């Protein structure tokens, strides 16, 4: 890794004006500091770039431009700056970035794709290193000594020969007049004292005393409350509305139609809710080709017989299957899934005659800003988006449909509005994890060789689906996103085909923690297990044989097997299943230990998880994200699914969409591989391996292959 970074100052200017190409570091222009120095002599802050500010009281404030939705960016990202800047972690203050042109990144300030740390790594190290370098320069100049005699440590610059010492705060005036350096030296990973250590999360104190502010908690003077009654039938619309009773509800202010339904606005949450309850709406169900889950799966089955778009084609699968001694095939199905973030969708919008301000739990604040600009006709600088804490994201909040609604209502009412979705609204109007069908075939030889692998993914397309208002043109029918994890199957097999068969329905689909990797890994890893079984080889050994050229897969697989005591005696009636999958740049293997009772209920007792995510930044966060992904994935493996009935989502609340609770919680052991590779994602990669690890363990316990999720006890009763 090069640890000298050259910074061309002219490029900053260019980078900022073209936002998104070229140099990733987004500095303010160096003049900003000089200007500030000239304008205000009394309080001079040192603001070397958009991520860092130091005030004369020695308060260091670090800015986070990703949305904090539980994944720990308020801790892991500032840690990277603090490392290079040599800060005292206990004195660091973290703030959420404003939504403006200076912040951009892989998704233009969007948070997702397990990308926060991996796409910030370089730019935040640079940001910290530049700040430290300028402070060293300032101190050297203050003392008229050579810079290389000075040392930065825990928020202080020390002149080593004399022992003179100044805090960063005492140096702000001087540092503000220093020009941004042309190049900076980054620390050698051996010198890391913050990165790779477990520091307390910066948001925890706010989250244990009720003061953490979610959009749901924002309160404005004169604010009113709104709920929307949306058509429950996909593709349906309003036929007739009788709002007489609703208008008579005490506290209801107004009822009107917006793009997504009927808005009921009240003086309080309860008044608006009661108003909505008293609406009498007749719906036109519209025409729906696939009005229930049965017809959707049938449609997928029919689509699977058609030709697909090639995603990967190695060798000649057709010929290899013909030559194989044994051909194994299997079909796997997975259902739609809701996100069910604990905080349902909501926002607060304050529309005024010449500007608009929004508080939103959004993963896509720039998208929100653009949309609000378009809706209000205001220029972008008159649209202020405040990103609050998100009560869960999981991909759902990449979509700003709830912001659109809030803006429409606030514009109509000419008042600040808090728009709230009930749990039922949230569950029935989600952008669901697509249901899918996976057709797999493999060719095996008597000597144990695996010579062919074929995987057809039949699924609705998120990218080319109907949920974008401005869909991306669907040219070649190949949605590579839908093949994530299927296309990259790591097993070394000479003939591989992976294809995609689009199967769009009118159910809105969207990003759901780990996206298509969740379905594709399930199919891959169950099928590999079936092949090992056919060849009568141990499932870990079989995988290792096919992963000889994949050292990072191999390492996590071996580590998880070792830590789980694979192949050794475990508790009576307990059985193990294994899986291994790489996604978002990170390699994960899991061993699940289960038992199946006489009622066919699967109990997951323990999950051992090995993860290689490159250089670990915050190990406690990595563990938390693995734990969280396993729990989220277990809910979808053991409990909940979204089904369609009569053109609408059947499940309405947590009694019908069951998620994992404390009494179902397995013990989870996470083992992190020590690596000096660049950091990769951790928010999602822990999820894809859990379903196949569990279903493979169920097979070991019962001899029954689970080829359709979630696991149904009635299929496992002995």
């Amino acid at each position: 890794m090069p640890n000298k970074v050259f910074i061309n100052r002219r490029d900053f200017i260019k980078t900022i004006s073209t936002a998104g190409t070229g140099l990733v570091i987004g500095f303010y222009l160096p003049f900003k500091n000089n200007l500030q120095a000239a304008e205000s002599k009394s309080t001079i802050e040192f603001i070397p770039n958009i991520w860092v500010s130091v005030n004369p009281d020695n308060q260091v404030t670090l800015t986070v431009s990703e949305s904090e939705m539980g994944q720990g960016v308020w801790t892991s990202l500032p840690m990277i700056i603090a490392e290079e800047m040599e800060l005292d972690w206990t004195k660091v203050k973290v703030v959420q970035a404003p939504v403006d042109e200076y912040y951009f990144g892989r998704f233009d300030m969007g948070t997702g794709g397990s990308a926060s740390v991996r796409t910030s790594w370089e730019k935040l190290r640079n940001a910290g290193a530049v700040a430290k370098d300028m402070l060293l320069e300032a101190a050297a100049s203050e003392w008229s000594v050579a810079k290389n005699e000075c040392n930065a440590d825990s928020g202080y610059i020390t002149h080593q020969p004399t022992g003179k010492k100044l805090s960063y705060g005492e140096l702000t005036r001087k540092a503000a007049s220093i020009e941004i350096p042309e190049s900076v030296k980054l620390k050698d990973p051996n010198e890391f004292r913050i990165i790779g250590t477990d520091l307390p999360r910066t948001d925890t104190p706010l989250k244990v005393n009720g003061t953490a502010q979610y959009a749901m908690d924002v309160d404005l003077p004169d604010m009113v409350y709104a709920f929307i009654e949306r058509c429950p039938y996909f593709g349906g619309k309003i036929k007739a509305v009788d709002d007489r009773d609703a208008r008579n509800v005490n506290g209801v202010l107004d009822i009107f139609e917006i793009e997504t339904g009927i808005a009921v606005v009240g003086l309080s949450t309860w008044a608006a809710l009661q108003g909505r309850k008293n609406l009498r709406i007749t719906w036109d169900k519209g025409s729906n080709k696939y009005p229930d889950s049965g017809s959707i799966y049938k449609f997928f089955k029919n689509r699977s017989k058609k030709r697909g778009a090639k995603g990967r084609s190695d060798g000649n699968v057709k010929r290899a299957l013909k030559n194989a001694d044994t051909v194994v095939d299997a079909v796997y199905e997975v259902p739609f899934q809701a996100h069910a973030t604990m905080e349902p969708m909501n926002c607060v919008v304050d529309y005024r005659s010449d500007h608009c301000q929004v508080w939103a739990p959004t993963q896509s604040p720039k998208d929100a800003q653009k949309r609000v600009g378009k809706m209000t006709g205001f220029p972008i600088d008159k649209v202020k988006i405040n990103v609050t804490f998100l009560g869960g994201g999981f991909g759902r909040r990449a979509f700003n449909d709830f912001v659109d609604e809030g803006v429409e209502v606030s514009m109509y009412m000419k008042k600040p509005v808090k728009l709230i979705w009930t749990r039922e609204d949230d569950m029935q109007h989600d952008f669901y994890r697509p249901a899918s069908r996976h057709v797999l075939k493999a060719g095996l030889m008597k000597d144990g060789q695996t010579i062919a692998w074929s995987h057809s993914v039949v699924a609705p397309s998120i990218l080319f689906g109907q949920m974008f208002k401005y869909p991306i043109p669907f040219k070649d029918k190949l949605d590579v996103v839908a093949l994530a994890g299927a296309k990259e199957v790591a097993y070394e097999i000479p003939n591989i085909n992976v294809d995609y068969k689009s199967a769009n329905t009118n159910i809105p689909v969207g990003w759901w923690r780990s996206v298509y990797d969740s379905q594709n890994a399930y199919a891959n890893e169950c099928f590999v297990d079936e092949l090992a079984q056919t060849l009568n080889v141990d499932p870990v050994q079989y995988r290792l044989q096919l992963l000889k050229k994949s050292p990072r897969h191999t390492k996590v697989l071996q580590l998880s097997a070792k830590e789980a005591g694979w192949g050794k005696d475990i508790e009576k009636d307990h059985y193990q299943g294994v899986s291994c999958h790489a996604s978002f740049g990170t390699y994960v293997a899991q061993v699940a230990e289960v038992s199946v009772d006489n009622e066919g209920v699967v109990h997951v007792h323990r999950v051992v998880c090995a993860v290689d995510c490159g250089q670990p930044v915050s190990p406690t966060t990595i563990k938390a994200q693995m734990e969280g992904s396993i729990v989220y994935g277990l809910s979808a493996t053991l409990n909940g699914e979204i089904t369609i009935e009569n053109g609408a989502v059947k499940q309405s609340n947590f009694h019908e969409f069951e998620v994992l609770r404390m009494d179902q919680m397995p013990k989870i052991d996470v083992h992190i591989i020590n690596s000096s590779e660049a950091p990769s994602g951790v928010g999602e990669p822990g999820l894809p391996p859990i379903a196949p690890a569990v279903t493979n363990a169920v097979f070991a316990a019962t001899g029954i292959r689970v080829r359709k999720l979630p696991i149904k006890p009635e299929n496992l009763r002995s």
Partner: protein
Amino acid sequence: MASFLIYINGEKRQVKVDGNTPLLWVLRDNLKLTGTKYGCGRGLCGACTVHIDGEAKRSCITAIENVAGSDITTIEGLSKDGNHPVQKAWVAEDVPQCGYCQSGQIMTAVALLSRNPDPDEDDINSAMKMNICRCGTYNRIRKGIIKAAKEMKNA
């Protein structure tokens, strides 16, 4: 609309609302105590858990008219500086992720420990299974409860 007298976090408060208004919305809209969260509105998820006369209850399905005169504690009233042993244990174990469910988790855990200072695995399961966490912090919650129980015993 009617007037109700309630005792919230040791303070006497008068609110004027419809009698069937859930306590949750009185806390959040009228009293601006937003630490108590809305999660499901049907008593299924536990995000709205508060203490009513010392017991963990779901404020989203508790009408204000049924708790008039009761002693109510919310997350804001649990301790002065966030230093209740359960809150401290939550910090020590780095429990919260998104944090939205955690007020409810903490209130349920405190109620559990006040009636059972030494809960075993099953006690924790049966008390805490009323509270959903989608981020999957359950094992850290479990550790937090055990840690807090120890501290409370030694206090």
